């Protein structure tokens, strides 16, 4: 009787543990291509009449060689660039990165507000909060990742 109860308990623990393990690494937004993992691509609603928007995400290189995000394309824009933004005192400086963004081996690079971002220019219809739009990221070694940006509210990430 005691044995059955212990076995049942062990079985339940095992089931619970395996479901936790299964749930942990899976993220709805994660995309893998080669050694590159892309987490949560997001953008935010631009003011109406704006024809620019920025895209953000976390890119992890699980491989043993550096890779490089070379370029991007997106359905909302015919002109997509890779940019960095820096504050020099109280001056905002926008820097285009024609050589792309290096993703070092075994490291993560976060594209985030006030920093590295995918820059969408010449947008005809600015995306609205709740929309999604498709994009492709081209990596030097890993190849092309097809991703989908989730459009958050204009104040993101302050509200996150």
């Amino acid at each position, binding site marked *: 009787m005691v044995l059955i109860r212990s076995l049942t308990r062990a079985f339940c623990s095992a089931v619970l543990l395996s479901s936790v393990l299964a749930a942990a690494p899976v993220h709805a937004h994660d995309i893998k291509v080669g050694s590159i993992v892309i987490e949560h691509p997001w953008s935010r609603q*631009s*003011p*109406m*009449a*704006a*024809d*620019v*928007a*920025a895209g953000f995400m976390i890119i992890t290189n699980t491989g043993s060689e550096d890779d490089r995000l070379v370029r991007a394309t997106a359905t909302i824009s015919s*002109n997509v*660039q890779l*940019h960095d*933004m820096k*504050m*020099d005192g*109280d*001056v*905002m*400086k*926008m*820097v*285009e990165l*024609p050589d792309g963004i290096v993703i070092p081996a075994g490291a993560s690079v976060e594209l985030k*507000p*006030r920093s590295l*971002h995918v*820059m*969408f*220019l010449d947008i005809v219809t600015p995306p609205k909060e709740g929309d999604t739009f498709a994009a492709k990221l081209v990596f030097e070694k890993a190849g092309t990742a097809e991703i989908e940006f989730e459009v958050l509210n*204009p*104040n993101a990430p302050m509200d996150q």
Partner: protein
Amino acid sequence: MRRLQFAVLGVAALAAALLGYLFYIQSQGSSSPLVQIGGDFTLASSKGGAVQSRSLTGKPYALFFGFTHCPEVCPTTLYEMSGALTAFGGAAKDFRVFFITVDPERDTVEKMRDYIANFDPRMEALVPTIEQLPKLASDFRVHYAKVPTSDGSYTMDHTASVYLFDAEGRFAGTIAFGEAPELREGKLRKLLGL
């Protein structure tokens, strides 16, 4: 050549000292800074007609320089100022917030009108002509520069602070980009006497 190097260094040191002093004065919250920031202007407005700086005296106001092809600093700052105006409600009914473009080549009055319509109705866009911009920027110590991009177009570097002016039209400090919300609110409350 040596002499030239010293001269350049000397000018750079003077500029640095002046800038440091300016920031010091600002950080002290002095009501009468020795360095004049601001100047007379008459600029085309998104609300039609023109706005004259002299007509602003009597009520506090704020100026922010930017451009509509700006993905980050400008919308963020404008949403923050818009949120503050909405939060203050009627207590800030006479407070005017101006968004002035440093990219008059692309930002027409119509474009700026559509853009500013995203924000609190007390916010107004001003459009200098290409000829007006250099003096305006110099009067307000605003840095702006065109930066070419690979597609043959350009983006703009620009000063990202909000300039505050009191009811006497005197420069009353700045709100830096990314400043903590409590600090921003405190400065606005002080300016508005709330």
